């Protein structure tokens, strides 16, 4: 471990420029997701065929009425990007919370109650390997139809395993430590020990894992929408806008560029914050 990057002064200064910018980007994206109508006057689903394929403002044919131009049906691209933030962030955050709760619950149970639970959990975790997210999502979409609920179910069913593994592993090491044994000797119930003693110690690592998986889930949601298995038209989402753009790349490049920038900016910001959180919270990155 090098001393310079982990000296006390660096550790205490959480908000270095990178994470600050990332936080600002996420604040904007969240604002778009929560109250899109406050941030754009335009209607994201209103079609005006007379105004289709308008380029971005400043290029010949573009106008300030549509700062990022319009798509093939004359819909305002900026408005669609603003409204498109909601499905990505909503699906990502719901899935990350549900997958985390499910995973930590299963992992703690398996770790605490021993061999049989352990065997079952590890068996299921192995099976997950042969049935990853996209296959799950495709199967579900074929059976119950495409949509946001399909995305959430697939993300939760495939996303809980890392949390379960982590919770189980941490629990197994912590169980041998004195503070847990003391709590047991004092007559604490298993539930109480888990909630009061083990979970708080697990939390920092969980937060780091959850942050990175949130970023992954945003990508996966937009991938599903891109494939036509997530958000259904005409509702705007970043993924389905890019799927639209495939057909017009030669005539209207802006449709294929700006929704992608929105995805990358959001995901990169979450990843940057994740890296910073890991440096601050993860014990392996703290030098003694």
């Amino acid at each position, binding site marked *: 471990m*090098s001393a310079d990057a982990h000296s006390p002064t660096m550790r205490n200064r959480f908000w270095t420029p990178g994470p600050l910018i990332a936080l600002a980007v996420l604040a904007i994206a969240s604002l778009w997701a929560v109250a899109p109508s406050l941030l754009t006057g335009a209607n994201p689903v209103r079609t005006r065929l007379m105004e289709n394929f308008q380029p971005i403002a400043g290029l010949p044919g573009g106008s300030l009425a549509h700062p990022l131009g319009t798509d093939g049906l004359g819909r305002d691209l900026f408005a669609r990007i603003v409204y498109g933030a909601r499905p990505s962030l909503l699906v990502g955050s719901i899935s990350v919370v549900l997958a985390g709760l499910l995973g930590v619950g299963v992992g703690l149970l398996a770790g605490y109650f021993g061999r049989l639970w352990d065997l079952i959990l590890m068996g299921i975790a192995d099976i997950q390997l*042969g049935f990853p997210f996209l296959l799950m999502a495709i199967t579900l979409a074929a059976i119950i139809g495409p949509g946001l609920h399909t995305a959430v179910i697939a993300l939760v069913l495939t996303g809980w395993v890392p949390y379960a593994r982590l919770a189980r592993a941490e629990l197994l090491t912590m169980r041998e430590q004195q503070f847990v044994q003391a709590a047991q000797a004092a007559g604490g119930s298993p539930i109480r020990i888990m909630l009061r003693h083990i979970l708080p110690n697990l939390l920092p690592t969980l937060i780091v894992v959850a942050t990175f998986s949130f970023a992954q889930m945003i990508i996966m949601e937009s991938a599903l929408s891109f494939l036509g298995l997530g958000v259904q038209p005409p509702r705007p989402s970043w993924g389905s806008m890019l799927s639209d753009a495939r057909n017009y790349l030669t005539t209207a490049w802006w449709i294929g560029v700006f929704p992608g920038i929105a995805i990358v900016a959001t995901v990169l910001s979450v990843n940057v914050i994740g890296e910073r959180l890991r440096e601050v919270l993860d014990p392996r990155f703290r030098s003694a």
Partner: protein
Amino acid sequence: MTLQYFLRKLSQAILIVWGVSTIVFIAVRLSGDPVALMVSDTAGAEQVQALRRAYGFDRSIPEQYLAFLERVARGDFGESLRFNLPALSVALDRLPATLVLAASSMAVAVLIGFPAGILAAIRRNTWLDRVAMMLALLGQSTPTFWSGLLAILLFAAWWRILPASGGETWRHLILPACTLGWFSAAKASRVLRSAVMEVLSADFVRTARAKGVPQSAVFLKHVLRNALISVTAMLTLEFQLLLGGAIITETVFAYPGMGRLVIQAVGTRDYPLVQAVVFLFSFLLVLSNFLVDLLYPLMDPRITRER
């Protein structure tokens, strides 16, 4: 490699295939009428009844489950509604194209990611390391369907040097393979960097240096060889991610592989075909995992003796 190790890994692989089959069975049963998934919307009531009998959906659930497992074992997923052919053979037809795409993406990932990761580890905390890791973070944050669109925009729409879609010649392979490989290269470089850094600080490397082994020999014989194990684990995982990524990349470039096939099958509600492709993908994942499990003991004999 002991026989016991081999058998353990084999039974694990079989368990996974069985588990996936069970999940699919449960999902289909929960959805309501499984026959509705297997016929086109225009099918008459008689046809539906005949199929229900043929597949045994009038029998009890355990009986149906066994019949389902038996069909999976035989590779019988029914007839594709769109192609009127056995679903599995339609899927197998597209398998080579997908494997070619995944393998060439892997090559791209290794060719970019390995040198980048090794350089970043040797020149740790220099500007080279920082630039490489920033690019890696950017690569990991960029979904393949967008980098693919940008690649089409630049190389096909504007500069017109490569075809935007299709899969007839090797030139059609360049853009999809680079798009998919670039994403994995980002991960590969990060893993290799930390693997090399970890080995570099090990005692046996210090010993080798102390006794005067030339730098290049230390690096090739001690560092890289030991970093290889965690890198192989990563590569298997990467290959499996590439198979998944192929579904998206094939759709972006209209590349005629299994991934595009399965997305079209979902769109046309061709359920037997969806099932066949999903099982085939899943089988490939399990198979690749099994083969790499067999490779590990050759690289590190200690592994066989672990749990």
